[in-house]
C-alpha cells in the first residue's frame, strides 16, 4: 500500500498536517464560514445596531474567533458603562 511504513509516523508531522488542513480549508474559499475580510464590516454593523439602543464607544467591541475543522466560533463581547444608581 502506498505510504506504508514500518516506523510509526512522528507525532509532530501529523500535527503539522492537521493544522494546515484546517487553516487552508478556511483560507482557500471562505466557504463554510465567514471570510476574514468581512469582519471589519461586521464589527461596524454590530456597533451600529447596538448604538440604536445604548451608547458605546468604538473600543467597546471585542471580537474573538476560534477556527475549528468542524465549525468555527465567533465570540463577541460588548462592554458598556454600568448605569449608575438606578434608584
Amino acid at each position: 500500500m502506498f505510504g506504508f511504513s514500518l516506523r510509526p509516523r512522528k507525532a509532530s508531522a501529523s500535527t503539522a498536517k492537521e493544522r494546515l488542513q484546517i487553516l487552508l480549508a478556511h483560507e482557500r474559499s471562505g466557504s463554510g464560514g465567514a471570510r476574514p475580510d468581512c469582519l471589519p464590516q461586521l464589527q461596524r454593523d454590530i456597533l451600529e445596531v447596538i448604538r440604536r439602543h445604548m451608547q458605546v464607544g468604538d473600543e467597546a467591541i471585542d471580537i474573538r474567533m476560534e477556527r475549528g475543522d468542524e465549525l468555527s466560533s465567533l465570540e463577541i463581547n460588548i462592554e458598556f458603562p454600568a448605569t449608575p444608581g438606578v434608584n
Partner: protein
Amino acid sequence: MSKDLKLEEPLGRVIVVTSGKGGVGKTTTSAAVGAELARRGHKTVVIDFDVGLRNLDMIMGCERRVVFDFINVIQGDAKLKQALIRDRRLENLAVLPTSQTRDKDALTKDGVEKVLDELRKEFDYIICDSPAGIERGAQMAMHFADEAIVVTNPEVSSVRDSDRVLGLLNSITERASKSGAEPVKAQVLITRHDKSRIDSGEMMTVEDVLEVLAVPLLGIIPESPAVLRASNLGVPVVLDEPSAAGTAYEDAVGRLIGEQIEMRIAADRRPGLLQRLFGRTV
C-alpha cells in the same frame, strides 16, 4: 507630582529580525526570541511584516485565532487591542498578525509608526519579523528599529545578503537619517550551524562569517531537529521540550538584554547504539 512619575516611564525597544535572504530562520527566531523575553517577564509583542504571506501565526500556534490584523489597524478598521492575539502559554506575550489578503503597499510609514508608538507604551520589547528581500515590507520592518538581529546561515548567499541588509540599516532607517541619533544596534545571529560540516571544512566557521560582516555576534543556533518539530506543533522552540536550539536561543536572548553569557555551541544529545536498540532515554 504624579505627572513627574509618568515622565520616567521607559518606552519599549523595537527590534527587527531581518536577513535579506529567505528561509534562514527569521520567523523561527522572532518566535523564539519573543517567547524567551516574555518568559523572563518582559512584556513582548511580535509583529509579522510579511504582508500577503502570513506565517508568524502558524509558528506561534495562534493561526486559528486571527480576526483582525496589522493592516486593519493601520487602515483604522480595527483598534490595536482588537488585533493583538494574547498568547495562551505566556501572559506577557502577544502577536500582531499581518494580512493574508492585502499587498505590501498597505504598509505606510505613518501607519507603521503610529502602531509602533502605541505598542511602545505597553510593551518592553517589540519584535518586528521582517519578510525576506529588501523591498517595501523589509524596509518598513527595519525603519523604526532601535536594534537589529541579522539572521545569517554560514553560506555565501546568506552572508552576502546580510551584508546588504546591514548597509540598509545604516542608511535608510529612521536612526540613520536623524542626525545625532545612535545608529541601529545590529548583531548577527548565526543559524543552522552544523559543527560536523564545519569540522570537515565544508562550512564556513563563525569566525569566517564575523570577519566578513564585522558586526558583533548575538548567538549561534545549531542545526537541530527541534526547529522543525516546534514549527510542526506551533510552539516557539524555547517553549517546546529542551533542545540545543532552544538553549542557544535562551543564551542569545540573555545577551540581547545585556547579560554576559559565554558563547557556546550546544549540540543535541544523540542516543547511543544501546539506547537506540532498547529505546531508553536515560
